[in-house]
């Protein structure tokens, strides 16, 4: 019998969500596609266009999950929102109950609790969208936001890999604000 070789699990898993064919809805997918080539022992990146109950299996694989997805709060397009999950004040496009068979994040968390499964630390990087018209390209504002987020990803990783209370409150950053992801305290 061949044995599966198990590798150490990265402490951070970045999950990109969204629809690649609908303008800014592709923001999360673009983020992980750009991030993935640099994946290392400290983090992994994967696409999950929409949530499903399979998310539950990923809970075992990491200490922290960062979802990256388009959001619509009324802020200026390209605004970056960084929030701990679950968080009722901000609904991303993919984490709600729009997934196959009704498995949004809350349902998966409910099932995890019912089954007594351990839940990793969860956070959302929400990118304020401008347009999600089918067939449209990503907007310049969201493109710039992606660039800021990617350039500052090492600091974001440090923030999320830090102490449990490193991200307890939502943070928002106006378009082009290179202070993202804000204050980072090393553990």
């Amino acid at each position: 019998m061949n044995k599966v070789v198990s590798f150490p699990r990265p402490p951070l898993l970045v999950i990109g969500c969204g629809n690649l064919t609908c303008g800014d809805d592709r923001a999360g997918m673009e983020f992980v596609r750009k991030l993935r080539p640099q994946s290392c022992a400290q983090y992994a990146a994967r696409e999950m266009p929409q949530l499903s109950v399979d998310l539950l299996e990923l809970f075992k694989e990491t200490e922290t999950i960062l979802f990256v997805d388009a959001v619509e709060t009324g802020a200026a397009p390209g605004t970056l929102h960084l929030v701990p999950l679950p968080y009722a004040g901000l609904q991303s496009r993919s984490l709600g109950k729009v997934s196959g068979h009704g498995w949004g994040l809350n349902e998966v968390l409910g099932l995890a609790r019912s089954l007594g499964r351990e839940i990793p630390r969860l956070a959302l990087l929400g990118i304020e969208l401008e347009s999600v018209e089918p067939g449209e390209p990503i907007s310049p504002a969201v493109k710039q936001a992606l660039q800021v987020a990617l350039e500052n990803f090492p600091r974001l990783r440090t923030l999320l890999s830090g102490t449990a209370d490193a991200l307890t409150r939502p943070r928002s950053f106006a378009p082009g604000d290179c202070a993202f992801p804000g204050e980072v305290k090393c553990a």
Partner: protein
Amino acid sequence: MSETAQTAAGERVLKRDSLLTRVEGEGGVYVRWEQDRLAEVRLDIFEPPRFFEAFLRGRHLHEVPDITARICGICPVAYQMSSVHALEAALGIVISPAIRRLRRLLYCAEWIQSHALHIYLLEGPDFLGYESALSLAKDHPELVERGLRLKKVGNDLLEVLGGRATHPVSVCVGGFYKTPRRKELMALHESLVWGLEAARTTARWAAQLTLPELTADYEFVALSHPDEYPMNEGRIVSSSGLDLTAAEFERHFLELQVAHSTALHSVRTENATSYLVGPLARLNLNRERLAPQAREVAHSSGLSFPLRNPFAMIIARSLEMLHAFEEALSIVESYEEPAQSAVECKVRAGEGCAATEAPRGLLYHRYRVNERGLVDFAKIVPPTAQNLRRIEDDLRLLLPRLKEASDEEMLAACENLVRAYDPCISCSTHFLKLTIDRSPRP
């Protein structure tokens, strides 16, 4: 967004004021009573049209399997299989026996994934008196854990064969872009052996469930193959005696537009009646070709064939999942890496069609390609669309028994029935909005 509004006539009407971009599909049941008489039943499908047949026009045939896979996040393999078989028919390509077996293995993975999810997390709670998988998990975590683990075996198999568990990317016209190494498949052997046992337990468990009583006079339609339980190949047969090649499908099955559904309805051309595709039809027409353990459970569980209760679809799915584990293990154990992952594909003008068995039933594709390999015409008839008319007929059978029931009881019963079909229009768990109009007509 959707909301329920009250009209002056006392009728509750579901309104949609915007469309979601990532629509899995939503449906609603409209029921109108005139006094005690069931006057109207509609399964409203208001998911926006997705125009895949139009998208495909002008695209190269090699893009088709990956585009059609995007039609469904639950059964992408089925769309890939029907499309490649149809295109291979158009190009006169005959695949090798090794590729054929790998494609059956791929289909086994999808049946396991899809059936496990539906049996344990979607439909199972209905028969055990639970509102959802979440509440079932609180009292019976072992059942939900079993379902999740069974599904994961399907996911893992799909990931090895298809490159990823959702929307696999390995399938091409003529075979696969890449075939797995033997050691990659054998790494799954242990979990497949566990899955086989768990699937046998599941099939016995499902066969003893107490199901609501409802019997319908179905015309069952499925593929049938002389030597195997149907997945990728076979003739299209029915319980009324049809025995067709895929090329004859459109002569005998007609798609109709109806005002209340953005999905087409399908009927039999000869008499405009509904028909049933899916696990129950497959099982009733092919049960002697189940793998040995599945056949043994089917025969020893006291089931009386043909099964004509729509709620027995959970039993059919359970037996098919057991079959899929048996066949998957057999293919994995005997697997030898093929010398070529695909046969050569010479582009030419042509037309071809194929039907394969998606988890939810017969899936028909037809393509016409030109000499440059571009798609000039595409037709796709999904299983859920074929069953929509039949679901409405079943609701007409069910509802008269419920005329004294409260709206809540009626909603639950309608939901259970629709959920039994595992429709791919969307969330099988509580996806329905029920509109009941009890106001007498003037």
